[in-house]
Structures are given as structure tokens and as C-alpha cells.
């Protein structure tokens, strides 16, 4: 009986081959997975960098605004972060990207591409295939920067003041509609009047936008930023803009000392110093209103200066 019992011979060679083969197979699968992941990460980083490159031709220069559109091949997510303390004194934004790979699954987002010289007012995550963007200059007596607005959703603007409606219609944006109160419109509701159920409420009188239960104060073209951006990104970018204003203020103070030698008597210096101090210490957008009033005083003084002695 014992002699007849058959057994499979598992010699050392077999065990060694199975272990080594398994190890090699594991390495190959691990390597291939990493390779695919790395390739996808490269694509995501490249796409994020290409989106940043789209911002450059949108600089307004002397224009009152510009608009453009980004059409993505697959349904994608674009992630935005903002840090007013990074890259001092200007702060920075980070843009990351991921796209649908298998079915509805998204690839892992890349580490992010930094944006230092642009001010992008946008929701924290954009999801879709078609992104629209437009730029508007932001002035606080002098031009501070261009504000870039990015969006993906449709918006329905109710009771819009004529000035804002003309500006947006001039940009030829297909995703922003101006329906009557009786017309049907699908998209985020932005109300300038007293309509009750709205996603975004704008009070022109108080320079205030109410969104996601938060109050965002605006001046000049920042109204668009407040409507389209997430409250966190809006407040962060307002701080970044004030940091930039402060740096620009230093350049203008130097210019004042130069043109003083050319028989010009600029009376802006003291007021500009006060405004710069206010901009540097800005904590929330609420302080913008007071700063803007000071900026308008500076504007008036500059307007009254001799033609050859205007500062800006």
C-alpha cells in the first residue's frame, strides 16, 4: 500500500522556478502599472501646463475684455488651489488636471502646475469637456492686473444691470443667459434683483455678492470674480491682488521721486502710502470698499495734475 502511494515530485528546481517566476511576474506587473500611471501623470501635467498657456493671450492690454474657450477631448476635472502666502509677496495658484480613463473613473490628478502671475477666479473643481474663460482688467486707481474668470456651468442672470449685461454680451459667451423672469433657463441662477431662490445674489448698492452662505465684497470688475469663483479662491485672490497693488505702489513711489526732478509736483505720495498700507494688511474683501474710496481720491488728484505730470 505504502509503496503504491503516488506523489508529485517537487524538487528544488521546481520550487526555485515558481518563486523566481512569481517574483519576475510581480515586478513586471508592478512596473507596467507604474509606467501607465506615470504616463497618465505626464499627460495630466502637460494638459495643466497647456491650460496655463491659454491665459497669456487673454491679457487685456488696452482692451476692456477678452474671451476664449477650451475644448477637452475627454470629460475632465480641473482642480484649483490658491495660497496668498506662498511665493511671497505675490502668492500663487495651483492648477491640477485629471481625465476620465476607464468608464467614469478619473485618473489620479497630477501634482499641479503653479501660476504666479495670473489671477484666476474659478470654482475649486471644474468638471466637464468645455471650459469658457474671459478676462477683465482690475483697476484700483491704477491697473493692478487682469482677472481671469473660468467656468463650465451655464449661468442664468436675472434683472442684470445694463452695464454688466452689455459687457458680458460683448464677450460673446454662450453659457451666460439673460432670461426674463418668466422664461425657462437651466443653469446656476444669479440674481441682481429681489428674486428669492437664487444660487448667487448680487447687491450692486452694497457691492456685495452672497454665495454658498458667504458674503463676498467687490469693487470694479471683481464682481465677475465674486460671481464665478468659490468663496475661498475669491478671498485668496483678493489678497494676492492687494499684494500686487502694494508692489506696484512701490514702483510708482519711485517714479514720483523721479518725476519730481522734472518740475512735477505729485500730491499723491502720502495718499498712496496710506492706500498701500491698507492693501498690505487686508484681511477680507470687506476692506476693499474703503480702500477703493481712497483709490478714487488718488485718481482724482492724478486727473487734476498737469498733462505732462500725470503718474499713470
Amino acid at each position: 500500500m505504502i509503496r503504491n502511494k503516488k506523489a508529485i515530485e517537487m524538487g528544488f528546481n521546481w520550487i526555485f522556478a515558481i518563486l523566481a517566476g512569481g517574483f519576475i511576474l510581480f515586478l513586471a506587473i508592478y512596473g507596467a502599472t507604474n509606467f501607465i500611471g506615470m504616463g497618465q501623470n505626464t499627460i495630466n501635467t502637460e494638459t495643466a501646463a497647456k491650460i496655463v498657456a491659454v491665459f497669456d493671450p487673454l491679457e487685456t492690454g488696452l482692451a476692456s475684455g477678452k474671451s476664449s474657450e477650451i475644448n477637452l477631448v475627454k470629460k475632465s476635472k480641473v482642480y484649483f488651489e490658491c495660497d496668498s502666502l506662498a511665493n511671497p509677496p505675490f502668492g500663487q495658484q495651483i492648477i491640477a488636471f485629471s481625465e476620465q480613463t476607464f468608464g467614469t473613473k478619473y485618473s489620479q490628478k497630477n501634482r499641479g502646475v503653479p501660476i504666479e502671475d495670473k489671477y484666476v477666479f474659478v470654482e475649486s473643481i471644474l468638471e466637464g469637456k468645455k471650459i469658457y474663460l474671459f478676462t477683465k482688467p482690475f483697476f484700483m486707481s491704477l491697473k493692478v492686473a487682469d482677472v481671469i474668470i473660468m467656468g463650465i456651468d451655464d449661468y442664468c442672470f436675472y434683472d442684470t444691470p445694463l452695464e454688466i449685461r452689455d459687457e458680458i454680451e460683448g464677450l460673446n459667451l454662450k453659457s451666460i443667459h439673460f432670461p426674463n423672469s418668466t422664461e425657462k433657463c437651466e443653469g446656476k441662477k444669479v440674481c441682481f434683483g429681489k428674486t428669492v431662490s437664487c444660487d448667487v445674489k448680487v447687491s450692486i448698492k452694497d457691492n456685495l455678492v452672497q454665495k454658498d452662505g458667504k458674503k463676498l465684497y467687490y469693487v470694479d470688475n471683481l464682481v465677475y470674480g465674486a460671481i464665478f469663483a468659490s468663496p475661498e479662491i475669491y478671498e485668496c485672490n483678493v489678497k494676492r491682488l492687494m499684494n500686487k497693488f502694494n508692489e506696484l505702489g512701490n514702483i510708482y513711489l519711485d517714479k514720483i521721486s523721479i518725476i519730481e526732478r522734472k518740475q512735477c509736483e505729485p500730491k499723491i505720495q502720502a495718499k498712496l502710502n496710506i492706500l498701500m498700507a491698507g492693501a498690505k494688511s487686508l484681511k477680507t474683501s470687506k476692506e476693499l470698499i474703503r480702500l477703493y474710496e481712497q483709490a478714487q481720491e488718488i485718481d482724482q488728484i492724478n486727473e487734476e495734475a498737469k498733462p505732462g505730470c500725470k503718474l499713470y
Partner: protein
Amino acid sequence: MKKQNLVANYTKMKNKKGQLQIQEMAFMLVAVLFFFVLVGLFVASIMYSNLHEDATQIAETRTLTSVTNLADSPEFSCVLSKSNCVDEDKLISLINKTSYINFWTFSSLKVVTFSAFNKNENEMIKCTRANYPECELFLVYDKNVSNERAISSYVALCRKEYENGYTYDKCELARLVAGTELKT
């Protein structure tokens, strides 16, 4: 006794044969691994060089589009928003202003006045607050990268001058030069 010796010799031979097979297999495995590592390195090097190429291309495109708009940016723009005009009185303030080095994406940024168009950079008179406006090269910043490609754009360079009781803008042609680091 003889039989026992034969068995012992047979076992020894079998062991030696087994050892040889293990050695062969180990060498084979090392060779296979080495082959895969080489293939991996080759693919990675191709991917890496493509990545650098793409990054440089994107950076160059950005520099090209930025440099044409730069003169109209708040840091450079002239009074009353003249198009494509650089304010020399603001430009002198930007020199040695370290905060802007990490603001723009260029690896270097300078403005060359018309009088220095045919000169080498080391022959140009560099602008400082002391010699302004009697100078030729406004070096805003230079990151001193080893491999750089420069793109330039012609601009009007204007400053305030006072003459015969009037303050006026004196303008001349200049070249705004921005560099992009080429990653190799």
C-alpha cells in the same frame, strides 16, 4: 562496500548536476532582470527627453505670447495707456527688485535701448539709479541659467523730460528681451 561507494558517487554526481542547474538558472534570472532593467531605462530616457522637449516648447510658447503683451502690463505700461509702450521711469525702479524674479516665468528679462542695438551685451552701459537715463541696458533680472533662448519684441521706451518750461514724454525705440530656460 562497493555498492555503498557507488551510491555515494551517484549522490555526489546528482548534487553537482543540481548545483550546476541552479547556477545556470540564477545566471539566466540575472540576465533576464538585467535585460528588463535596460529596456526600462531606455524607455524612461526616451520619455524623459520627450517630457523636457514638451516642457521647453510650452515654456517658449508662453514666453512668446507673454513678451508681446508685457509692455502693456501694469509694471511697464506708459502714462495714459499708450499701446506697446514701456515707461522708462518705472523700468528703472524694477532693476534689482528681487520680488519679481519669481513672478514672471522668464529666465531673464531686459530692455535694450536703440543706441545699443548693434552692441554686445558686455559693451552696453548698464542702467543704475546713478547713471539713469544715460545708459543702454535695463537688466530687470537674470537667473543666469546655463541654456537659454531669448525672444525679443520692439517697444516704445518713454520717459518724462523737462525742457523750456514744459514737461513732456521723450520716446525712443527699444527692444524688450525675455529668455526661456531650455531644459536638456
